[in-house]
């Protein structure tokens, strides 16, 4: 533990604080992580920008048409700024980025930022709902599996959880549509309504895609929780709590949960990348007007700026979430909290 201004040990009589305080070491760690985050961000922008160089052929020709005369092609090229050196192109793109300008869509002729902002709420609704479902479901089931380890409940949940991991989430979506939109007409199959327009309808539209998306993440969380809580239940301090007279249930839902929550919380954070990725295809299945369908459409239409924009935005989200998870881990760790 690093040096702190406050005295430590049994002699630190009146200096004890009642709220947690970050040690210098923790702050330094967070600072380093932040620096790293910035570096990762810059590198990510570089990679996203270089996606454009993957395009086979000359983009100017692609736009102008195969039989256009060289003059037109050259004009288009200079219009798009493609005649500048690569580094300059990158830096100017990056500059635009930092001011919120991601370029214009080749198809829609509208700023990419606008398109993304427009599609964002739908994707956010589904991603957040899916995460909530995954966490609640996964953690609950994981804890039960840990409590009944080795017994039937545990084996059953392990099988179910494995099923969650091996099924393609878009296929699950299709099956859900089959069961709950056609066989039992409970929910609409496709489409989306804004929350502000009609909350109930909004819920009806997002529930199936959220479930489809939540399955894989929830299954992973279930495994992690089960493993972590199982391990905690073998600890000596659990034995002490039981010797005090606390029931198994109480020990599980207070002590085990508190001690086990930390690794689980960090897993949640790191699952974000997978969740965002998985949502792309699921959106397509349910025809949700979110970033995922926009990405797919832009791939088909070869609308590069839009594609780059979406990849960048989602990656930045993941980078930030990862950073916050790192910070949360540091803050939650009681050994680091108090001096």
């Amino acid at each position: 533990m690093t040096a702190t201004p406050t005295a430590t040990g049994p002699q630190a009589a009146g200096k004890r604080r009642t709220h947690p305080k970050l040690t210098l070491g923790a702050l330094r760690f967070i600072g380093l992580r932040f620096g790293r985050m910035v570096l990762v961000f810059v590198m990510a922008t570089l990679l996203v920008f270089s996606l454009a160089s993957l395009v086979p052929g000359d983009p100017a020709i692609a736009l102008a048409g195969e039989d256009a005369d060289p003059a037109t092609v050259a004009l288009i090229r200079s219009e798009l700024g493609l005649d500048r050196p690569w580094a300059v192109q990158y830096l100017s793109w990056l500059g635009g980025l930092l001011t919120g300008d991601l370029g214009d869509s080749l198809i829609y002729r509208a700023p990419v930022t606008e398109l993304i902002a427009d599609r964002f709420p739908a994707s956010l609704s589904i991603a957040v709902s899916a995460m909530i479902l995954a966490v609640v479901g996964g953690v609950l089931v994981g804890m039960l599996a840990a409590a009944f380890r080795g017994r039937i409940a545990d084996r059953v949940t392990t099988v179910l959880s494995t099923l969650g991991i091996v099924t393609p989430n878009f296929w699950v979506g299709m099956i859900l549509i089959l069961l709950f939109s056609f066989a039992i007409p409970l929910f609409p199959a496709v489409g989306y309504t804004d929350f502000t327009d009609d909350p109930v309808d909004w819920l009806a539209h997002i529930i199936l895609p959220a479930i489809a998306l939540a399955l894989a993440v929830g299954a992973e969380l279930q495994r992690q929780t089960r493993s972590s809580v199982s391990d905690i239940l073998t600890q000596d301090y659990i034995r002490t709590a039981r010797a005090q007279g606390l029931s198994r249930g109480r020990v599980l839902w207070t002590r085990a949960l508190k001690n086990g929550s930390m690794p689980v919380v960090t897993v949640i954070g790191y699952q974000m990348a997978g969740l965002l990725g998985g949502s792309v295809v699921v959106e397509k299945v349910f025809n949700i007007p979110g970033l995922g369908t926009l990405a797919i459409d832009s791939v088909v239409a070869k609308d590069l700026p839009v594609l780059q924009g979406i990849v960048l935005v989602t990656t930045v989200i993941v980078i930030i979430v990862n950073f916050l998870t790192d910070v949360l881990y540091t803050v939650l760790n009681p050994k680091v909290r108090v001096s």
Partner: protein
Amino acid sequence: MTDPILEVEDLRTEIQIDGRWLPVVDGVTYSVRPGETLGLVGESGSGKSVSAMTLMGFVGRRRGQRLSGHASFRGQDLLGMSERDLGKMRGNDIAMVFQEPMTSLDPSFKVGNQIAEGIRLHQGVSRDEAMRLAIEAMDKVRIPNAKVRADSYPHEFSGGMRQRVLIAMAIANNPALLIADEPTTALDVSVQAQILTLLAEMRDELGLAMIFITHNMGVVADICDRVAVMYAGQIIETGEVRETFADPQHPYTERLLASMPRLRGERRQLEWIPGTPPGPAGFAEGCRFAPRCTHARDVCLEPTTLLEIGGGRANRCTRDVEWKEEVAG
């Protein structure tokens, strides 16, 4: 002569391994009177901890575990008691302190809160009152600056201090019986004496009955009134400490006493018992100590029973008095 507060008779705990039922505790009989301290002695693997855990209801009640025999606390049957009732007794009427103080406290909760939780559970008082009582308990176990320290996390305490906290936790609800399972083994020698003294003081102040589980005969001589010696899952001798130490009735007890290093008296070579104690899969049919006993005879191949030999003593050795005559002057 008051009635015993705890009576254990022929307790047997079996664990199922690879289809076989192995008796980890097998024929344990002893009793504890109010205010009395019983030393439960034996080597590692003798089953002493398991027998205590069985009484508390932590062993013997799951799949792959079973128990038989009798154990009653204040007349109530412990072995047949429901989990709910056991929960009401634990930390309340019967408390237990374990061996590893470093890992026995929850790292995520403040120490005062952990003690107070047990108080609230059994005494039903308010949070503030429970905390006040928790601090009082910490005072009783001589933790300096209890009020402030109650607000600290376990990792801020040394090993000895943590054990004090655990003892505070155990006595917080004024139990009638305290089971201490090797409470000093994991501590530094200098701290060991402190904790032992503390336990003795608690016992005297609160009138606690105590079962002190240890492998150290010296400790038994120090603070125990009676002693029960365990070997290979069985009690092989019980009796009052002074009497038993002066005149052990079982060869194993005699060997244990002989192997105690002595600081005073004439210098002699350190004695030990050759061989190692058997595991439950390898228990002999007859006397389980016979393979290592210098006094073993054919009769020792017969199954043994723990016989009361009068004067509050019991002995399992089939060759009872005979073997003593063989011991060289």
